[in-house]
């Protein structure tokens, strides 16, 4: 109450400053007059009486000031006045102001842009109920070194019912859904989920309902949920959609609900496409051991991730004897945050560190400018303090000026950051954008703006405080005596300049080394041999679906016709079809060799299983090392055949002829003869190495497949693969116009995907390091120029006394270069300690790569010598006579 009243009174007088000042004046005058009147009774004249009262009561101006300054609004007024005064002084030196604002703007902008990514991926609350207790459940197999595997129904049920670690566990699996019947046939990203998934996440549908437990059963009614996106895009947001039937992959599903747009897909791994359809019908059976599902569980309150894992492992050990497929598997839990942020965490942290360095350099630069400016204004401060301004008062004024600069810099930074975010979104790998959909949107949210403001205010203290404290030092008489004459720099202020230069160069050094290491990493990645020729290859996927393609025969005929039609295009050299592509994935199948037909449980060999058409090896240009490739005789009537890769041959038939040996895939089915050995192909990206692979021809209708779907097309030399997309789709639609064509990409694009993150980090680090280099060179240059200007008289004297130009040149250059090398030394030490943190991002280079370190030292040394040389040249042009007379 009293605070409110005080605030109200303050506001009143704030807006009626003059009136309240007048009232106070009148009241005070009245007081004095009355006191004087009292004195006059004792016989004094009016004038004498007034004088006596004045002596007794002190200066009325001081009294007024005292009374006024006791109120809070007078503090506001002072700030306001400081602010206006600051603005006026800054307007008088537009050059300084512009440079300072731009420098800070770059620093704050870079920080804001990167922070918006860090916030979106690592800090933003996950939009689910009790998200901190939600875990992503997978499994690992320590004896075989496998990680992050999907889990089986047997495990889900045992863990849910017996571990007592979870409130509940839900499961889901991805599948391909081709939607027909409403408009064009389209493949939608799709998941089959258990009915408890959305209740567990605490996400309610915006229309209709989610699934009931009855609908989990395979015999239950087939129902489907739509994403908000699909509802809008395909059904125009119509309310009537609930209850309608959709044809999905040839089956009829009833729409029961629409899910909200609020990132309700964020439970899933960020590497997949967010689903637009959710289907019912997962019946978990305690005897089913196929690894098809991902689990999501909510831990009971107070149960930690480790405790839950330990309890689940105990259950895994107990159910192991039930089925040999369960052998060796243990639970692998992950928090939602870890799961959705994926591998981007270290990259983002490295980038955040980098932009903080850039900001520090910017601050050091502005501090240098302020120090120099402070020396020029020494006179002004001396006059003020001679007139009674306390040191605190001057510091406050200077800090207000700095605040004006940094707020303007912050505004400039927010502007730059919005461009930066667009650039970031363009560079960011797909999965980063999926984990953080806000990143691509242009408008930064309030928290990001608050961050920018906070950084701006923080930087004020960082760059403004030390110069302000130094400028406001109360050496009034010294400064006044030096009126009109530029003083020699004091040793202390020179050492402050030096410290700032050394730290700028050291910071720039660390950034340059980080950028250099990333450049080297990408160069190494570019040198990796993929095992196939990724240039000139187009791939696309046709998810064959519908009644017509139930029969495998029909699929085979479709592909035969597509391949021969595409191959007859003039710009196409060869074409083939496969299930599975290099780089983009690995689908493991167990197998047994004729030498060891019954491998012990838990040690069954496994290899990537690729179903291919004829000409696949020719189209991808994968070399055949031994034996032959598939031919037209490898059809349903011929001998069952398989081609293996070198890695598999090395592992199981080392030193022996692999061609002619036999193997069996999946533990049942026919035995296949090895007819050829193909070269190794990177199946999971350039840094994952080679793994066993086996290729089978699709014409032999392998029982273990749902048919080929990836078309691969090699264009003739000189024809860009992108340019034939239209023709190829036309050919496919000429054969069946109802088939959607998706995932159109060149193999070169696919090969770049796994290193997209390194590309992003490299591009950003290089630009930050470039910025740091420019800023620190500018810093060195401006400090030296300033010091040369300050020492004009000294240099003139030296020259008058016989110093040669080269002596003067050396005097200036050596001083600057000594600082630069000190900075390089400090930076080197810091870099050696810090680059270890980015080890996970590197490939083929050590964090202490001598080449990078050497190159960076060279670049920095040359830049700083240049930055010293230009002001030094200017020093040699000093005319001794002018310099001594000067001032």
């Amino acid at each position: 109450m009293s605070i409110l009243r005080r605030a109200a009174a303050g506001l009143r007088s704030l807006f009626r400053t003059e009136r309240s000042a007048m009232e106070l004046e009148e009241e005070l005058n009245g007081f004095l007059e009355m006191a004087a009147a009292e004195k006059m009774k004792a016989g004094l004249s009016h004038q004498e009486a007034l004088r006596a009262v004045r002596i007794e009561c002190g200066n009325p101006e001081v009294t007024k000031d005292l009374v006024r300054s006791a109120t809070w609004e007078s503090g506001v007024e002072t700030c306001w006045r400081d602010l206006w005064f600051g603005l006026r002084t800054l307007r008088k030196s537009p050059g300084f102001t512009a440079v300072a604002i731009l420098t800070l703007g770059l620093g704050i902008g870079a920080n804001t842009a990167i922070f918006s990514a860090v916030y979106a991926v690592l800090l933003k609350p996950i939009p689910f109920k009790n998200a901190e207790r939600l875990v992503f459940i997978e499994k690992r197999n320590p004896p075989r070194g496998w990680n992050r595997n999907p889990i089986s129904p047997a495990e889900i049920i045992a863990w849910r019912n017996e571990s007592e670690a979870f409130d509940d566990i839900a499961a889901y699996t991805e599948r391909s859904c081709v939607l027909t019947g409403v408009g064009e046939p389209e493949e939608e990203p799709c998941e089959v989920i258990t009915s408890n998934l959305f209740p567990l996440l605490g996400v309610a549908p915006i229309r209709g309902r989610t699934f009931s437990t009855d609908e989990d059963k395979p015999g239950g009614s087939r129902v489907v949920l739509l994403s908000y996106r699909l509802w809008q895009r395909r059904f125009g947001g119509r309310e009537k959609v609930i209850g309608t039937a959709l044809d999905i992959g040839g089956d009829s599903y009833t729409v029961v609900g629409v899910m909200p747009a609020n990132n309700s897909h964020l439970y899933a791994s960020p590497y997949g496409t967010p689903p637009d359809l959710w289907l019912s019908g997962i019946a978990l059976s305690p005897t089913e051991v196929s690894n098809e599902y991902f689990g999501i569980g909510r831990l009971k309150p107070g149960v930690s991730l480790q405790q839950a894992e330990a309890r689940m492992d105990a259950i895994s050990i107990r159910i192991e004897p039930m089925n040999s497929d369960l052998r060796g598997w243990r639970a692998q839990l992950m928090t939602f945050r870890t799961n959705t942020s994926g591998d981007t965490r270290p990259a983002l942290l490295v980038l955040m560190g980098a932009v903080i360095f850039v900001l520090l350099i910017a601050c050091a630069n502005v501090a240098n400018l302020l120090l120099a400016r402070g020396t020029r204004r020494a006179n002004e401060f001396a006059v003020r303090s001679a007139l009674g301004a306390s040191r605190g008062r001057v510091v406050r004024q200077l800090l207000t000026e700095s605040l004006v600069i940094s707020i303007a810099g912050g505004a400039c930074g927010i502007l730059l950051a919005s461009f930066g975010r667009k650039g970031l979104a363009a560079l960011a790998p797909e999965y980063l954008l999926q984990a953080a959909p806000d990143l691509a949107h242009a408008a930064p949210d309030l928290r990001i703006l608050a961050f920018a403001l906070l950084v701006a205010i923080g930087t004020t203290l960082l760059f403004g405080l030390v110069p302000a404290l130094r400028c406001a030092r109360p050496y009034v008489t010294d400064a006044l005596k030096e009126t009109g004459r530029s003083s020699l720099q004091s040793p202390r202020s020179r050492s402050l300049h030096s410290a700032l230069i050394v730290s700028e160069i050291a910071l720039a050094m660390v950034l340059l080394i980080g950028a250099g290491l990333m450049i080297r990493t990408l160069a190494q990645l570019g040198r990796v041999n993929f095992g196939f020729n990724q240039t000139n290859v187009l791939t696309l996927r046709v998810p064959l679906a519908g009644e017509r393609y139930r029969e495998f025969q029909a699929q085979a005929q479709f592909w035969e016709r597509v391949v021969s039609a595409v191959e007859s295009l003039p710009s196409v050299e060869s074409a083939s079809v496969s299930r599975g592509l290099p780089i983009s994935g690995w689908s493991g199948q167990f197998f047994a060799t004729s030498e060891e037909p019954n491998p012990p449980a838990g040690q069954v060999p496994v290899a990537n299983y690729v179903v291919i058409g004829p000409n696949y090896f020719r189209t991808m240009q994968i070399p055949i090392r031994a034996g032959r490739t598939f031919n037209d005789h490898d059809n349903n009537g011929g001998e069952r055949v398989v081609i293996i890769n070198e890695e598999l041959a090395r592992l199981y038939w080392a030193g022996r002829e692999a061609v002619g040996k036999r193997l069996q895939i999946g533990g049942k089915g026919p035995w296949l003869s090895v007819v050829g050995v193909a070269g190794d192909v990177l199946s999971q990206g350039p840094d994952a190495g080679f793994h066993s692979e086996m290729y089978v021809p699709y014409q032999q209708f392998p029982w273990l497949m749902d048919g080929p779907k990836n078309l691969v097309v090699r264009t003739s030399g000189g024809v860009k693969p992108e340019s034939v997309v239209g023709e190829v789709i036309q050919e496919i639609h000429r054969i069946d116009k109802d088939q959607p064509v998706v995932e159109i990409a060149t193999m070169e694009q696919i090969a770049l995907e796994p290193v997209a993150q390194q590309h992003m980090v490299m591009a950003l680090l290089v630009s930050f390091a470039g910025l740091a280099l420019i800023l620190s060179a500018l810093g060195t240059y401006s400090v030296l120029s300033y010091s040369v200007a300050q020492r004009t008289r000294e240099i003139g004297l030296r020259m008058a006394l016989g110093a040669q130009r080269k002596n003067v040149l050396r005097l200036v250059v050596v001083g600057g270069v000594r600082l630069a090398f000190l900075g390089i030394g400090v930076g080197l030490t810091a870099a050696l300690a810090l680059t270890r943190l980015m080890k996970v991002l590197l490939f083929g280079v050590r964090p202490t790569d001598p080449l990078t370190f050497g190159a960076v030292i060279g670049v920095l040394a040359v830049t700083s010598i240049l930055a010293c040389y230009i002001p030094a040249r200017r020093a040699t042009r000093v005319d001794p006579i002018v310099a001594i007379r000067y001032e």
Partner: protein
Amino acid sequence: MLLLVTRRIEDFMPEKASDLIQGTLDMLILKTLALEPMHGYGISVRIEQVSKSVFRLNAGSLFLAIQRLERDGLIQSEWKPTENNRRAKYHALTRKGRTRLNSETREWERQTTAIARILEAT
């Protein structure tokens, strides 16, 4: 050039005559105003007279205290002509001011009695 001079408030506290115990000035002003509304000079004269010149207020601390009391809603002020046909700002106790004066007086008495007891006990 813009100049602002601030001095520490302590410099203007009552000098020469006995220093007032922190916070008692407010109570004395309230007590003075409890009799009738008064202007600033009247308050200072009255306090000086009643205290037999032990407490002498200077204008600075008086006006500071008045401003404070007014903002806290303990007194309210209005411009009125004085007996000498001069315009002066008269300050009057509000109901809240009266309550505050009572409670502060009680507290003051409690404390002085206690202090006296301690000083007398030997």
